């Protein structure tokens, strides 16, 4: 017989939107912060965004150039592996498809890299096809450094550690290279609907 916690009923506050809440998650209304070290201090004059790795020629944008790229505003649900889900979050930024326009590559994998040394890996087809953005506004305001500003990756269909804060570029690779959390016990793929939280899930 399945395990039952004696005397537990639960608050069931998520029932109205339960079809949007992956297994093991609960809805929050605030925006918790999680990161492994101090929040970097942004320096827009020296900021750049780079696509490199398995490409003929790396592409790099300054902050001013990046801000001139076509933008999209998306409203998505986000899911953190620490169990919280936040519904209907609104972001503005540049689609990864736009950043990869004209890039000829044999790569099948990508590693996003950030200020502070953070990395996270994904199959390339998980961040193309209108599934990922590099965002610099949250809820109509410049993205706060605590939440990854000046710019972060947004890959809403995977757990939020894939949405690298303080992102500075994407390296395209022929082989899969586990990133920071992926090397520290967290799942290599991270699909919240399959509850791929940890190694072996």
């Amino acid at each position, binding site marked *: 017989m399945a395990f039952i916690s004696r005397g537990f009923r639960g608050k069931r506050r998520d029932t109205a939107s339960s079809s949007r809440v992956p297994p093991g998650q609960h809805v929050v209304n605030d925006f918790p912060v999680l990161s492994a070290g101090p*929040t970097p201090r942004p320096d827009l004059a020296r900021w750049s965004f780079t696509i490199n790795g398995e490409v003929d020629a790396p592409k790099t944008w300054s902050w001013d150039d990046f801000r001139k790229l076509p933008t999209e505003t998306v409203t998505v649900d986000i899911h953190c592996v620490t169990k919280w889900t936040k519904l209907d979050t609104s972001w503005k930024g540049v689609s990864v498809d736009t950043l990869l326009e004209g890039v000829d590559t044999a790569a099948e994998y990508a590693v996003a890299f950030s200020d*502070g040394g953070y990395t996270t890996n994904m199959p390339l087809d998980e961040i193309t096809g209108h599934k990922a953005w590099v965002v610099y506004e949250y809820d109509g305001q410049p993205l706060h450094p605590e939440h990854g500003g000046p710019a972060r990756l947004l890959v809403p269909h995977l757990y939020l550690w894939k949405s690298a804060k303080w992102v500075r570029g994407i390296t395209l690779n022929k082989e899969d290279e*586990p990133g920071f959390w992926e090397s520290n016990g967290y799942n290599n793929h991270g699909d919240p609907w399959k509850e791929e939280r940890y190694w072996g899930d």
Partner: protein
Amino acid sequence: MGRLIVPTKLSWQIGEVTDIVRETPRVATLTIDVPAWSGHLAGQHVDVRLTADDGYQAQRSYSIASPPEESRLAITVERLEDGEVSPYLVGELRPKDKVELRGPIGGFFVWRAGDPRRLLLVAGGSGIVPLMAMIRHRAAVGDQTPVRLLYSSRTFEDVIYRHELERLAGANQTLTVAHTLTRSQAPGWTGYARRLDGAMVEEVAWPASDHPQVFICGPTSFVEAAAGLLVDHGYEPGWIKTERFGATGG
């Protein structure tokens, strides 16, 4: 295909609560006998899953308080008034009850005895829990690495592990504990009586020239402030490991 990570599935296990100790009015430590526990490192956490009789489930993560050297697992839980899981763990649960959990989780916010770097631990409220696992680990193996703990609580009654910290610091010159109480202080209080600030960091933290290792755990605003003060103090961001929790940990 690239570097292979050998997956070891973290299975759900059922443990039996053997002991519940009230640490403060809102905080309790649960000691849990988990028969197939694989061991853990100081600083790691576990996921706890509760299941109602109709199948409804809720999961949360809790830091492990016990050192790797102890056979029984201990977690210290703060009861959040609007929480879903913590009021059950601190309130409903009794010794001999069963609880479902899996872990240990997290390979970054961990400290291993034998690391030669001086250690600075900075705790806000129940953020002391994973840092206490480190302090207990160090005591259990007789590690002599110099450690300083800066621990911020709201009131004297809210200080978790107060007696044990006093005893450990009294017994070992290499552990120094500095408390600050941010909300109220009893007459005769000799510790700090304000929020963390640069002057406090200057007095308590190792000089940057020592290249210490730092672990900070607490609410987000506390961790942001503490990490910022330490960077201002000359610490490299790479020396500092943080663990944050919001008010919605539940």
